């Protein structure tokens, strides 16, 4: 009687346990490394390299200033379970990222650890932009320029280095990461001559608000005529603006580029005073992986061409 009573119970208990285990085991098997990036464009590079083998989340969104992020609990939560933190580096996120890393209590994503990867790990800081005189360079922001993702070739370099790092974190898929990074490199390289030709036809010297687009301009062989705000966050002088107006007339500059998140009012005033046009140029666009990254350059090139006519 007792056996008869207990057996079915054991059976049902066993079935419940087995069911629970069956739920847990595959979950562990299919858990993909979570990659947290600081900007949407880095997320696209990570997606291009990691594909279906990783999960990617970006802390900032398209159109948001990556220099300034107001940290929220969800950011800390994301970082606490991250396998890899992929940041731009060169000081871009230095105002907010160290705090978030500390709060996440995830020792693995601290700088110097295997779960921390940034542009600094793969590339050198910027060289001298085209067309810049030595005096202009002295006035130029002393900060190291962090906007490397706007140079497609640097994007490739970082993607290749990221593939190696992902392979270390997730050795099972190491080969797949390398293959995808190589694909990314060839796809971007294939587009590069087209973008350059387009820019060669359509643009002359350009004035920009900050040094955001210097990498892009170098890569596309566009001459930089000057910055509206040479020192980031410090109001330019009236003398500097008058000199810029002179430069605009001398070099026949036809266009000013402004980042989506910078105050356009001063740039507009300068454009009106000099009688030239002002355009907002994206530094990231929505989209997934390789398509998204190439789409960003397509969008930039198209916008510039349209506004330069």
């Amino acid at each position, binding site marked *: 009687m007792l056996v008869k009573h207990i057996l079915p119970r054991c059976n049902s208990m066993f079935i419940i346990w087995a069911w629970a285990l069956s739920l847990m085991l595959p979950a562990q098997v299919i858990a993909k490394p979570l990659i947290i990036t600081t900007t949407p464009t880095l997320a696209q590079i990570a997606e291009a390299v990691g594909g279906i083998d990783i999960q990617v989340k970006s802390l900032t*969104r398209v*159109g*948001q*200033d990556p220099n*300034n992020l*107001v940290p*929220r609990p969800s950011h800390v939560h994301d970082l606490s379970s991250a396998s890899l933190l992929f940041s731009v580096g060169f000081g871009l996120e230095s105002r907010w990222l160290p705090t978030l890393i500390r709060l996440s209590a995830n020792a693995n994503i601290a700088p110097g650890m295997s779960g921390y990867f940034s542009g600094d790990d793969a590339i050198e800081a910027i060289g001298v932009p085209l067309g810049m005189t030595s005096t202009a360079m002295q006035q130029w922001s002393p900060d190291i320029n962090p906007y490397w993702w706007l140079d497609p070739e640097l994007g490739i370099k970082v993607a290749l280095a990221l593939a190696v790092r992902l392979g270390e974190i997730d050795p099972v898929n190491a080969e797949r990461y390398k293959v995808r990074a190589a694909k990314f490199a060839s796809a971007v390289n294939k587009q590069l001559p087209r973008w350059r030709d387009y820019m060669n036809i359509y643009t002359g010297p350009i004035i920009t608000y900050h040094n955001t687009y210097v990498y892009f301009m170098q890569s596309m062989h566009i001459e930089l005529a000057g910055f509206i705000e040479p020192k980031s966050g*410090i*109001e*330019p*002088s*009236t*003398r*500097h*603006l*008058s000199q810029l*107006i002179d430069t605009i007339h001398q070099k026949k500059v036809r266009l000013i580029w402004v980042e989506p*998140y910078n*105050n356009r*009012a*001063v740039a*507009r*005033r*300068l454009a*009106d*005073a000099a009688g030239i046009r002002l355009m907002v140029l994206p530094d990231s666009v929505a989209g997934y992986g390789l398509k998204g990254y190439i789409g960003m350059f397509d969008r930039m090139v198209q916008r510039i061409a349209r506004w330069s006519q």
Partner: protein
Amino acid sequence: MILLTVLIATLVIAISLPVLGQRVLERRIVFVDLALAQVAATGYALGMALHMPGILIAIITTAIAVALMALMDEDTVLPKEAVMGAVYAFAASLGMVLLSLLPYGEGQLMGLMFGSILAINWEGIGILVAFSALGLALALTPHSNTYHGRLRFAAGLSLIIVPAIHAIGVLLVFAYLVMPALAVWRHGHNGPVWQATALAALASIIGTLAAHLLDLPPSATVVLTLGLISVIIGTIMHNMHHKTDNEKADEEDQEESSDQDGNKQRERTNDNP
């Protein structure tokens, strides 16, 4: 050309803000401009985030804030500066939270309300002059501590402050509102309006030209110049007043003592018939 608009814009606020600042100082509500600017900025950002005209929403939120502020009696037992500070903090936080709830709303939208002196053009100066004239006409009417009186003052104040901050930024507006009025402040009361205005105009000219020649940021340079001129002229005039007051007191003392001598002499003559 940009130098000229910057100079004219700082001269416009040198005329409109010090006189208004004296009324503000008198009522001891100095933070009112920060509070109103923040309320407007919150409204502006919300409008932008909700795809409505930012300016319109800013006007509505500021009008509501003005109507509520006018409810506060001027002789209230509450410390009025603390109330203004609280309104500022509350408006800023409300804006932040509301923006964070929207899918693409960002804190940086709030910054769009705060302009730059470098961005102002002739049209902007025209608008600034028009709003300043309208605001002064409302705010400089005789003081009355009724709801209507307070409403008129707060409305006039916001008509000047909010467009000014939108056009040239909070730093210049706050400095021009309080520094000249403080420099001519005498014996717990406001000094002459012309002195405050002249001092501000002088700072506009010297500060703007110095910033241009020395290649410095104009807003901060003009504020520094205004601060220095205010301290120097304020100290000189304070000492002069102090001297004239002392001289007056001395004269009165002498008069009193000569009166006393006269009385004594009279007494003596009375004693010696």
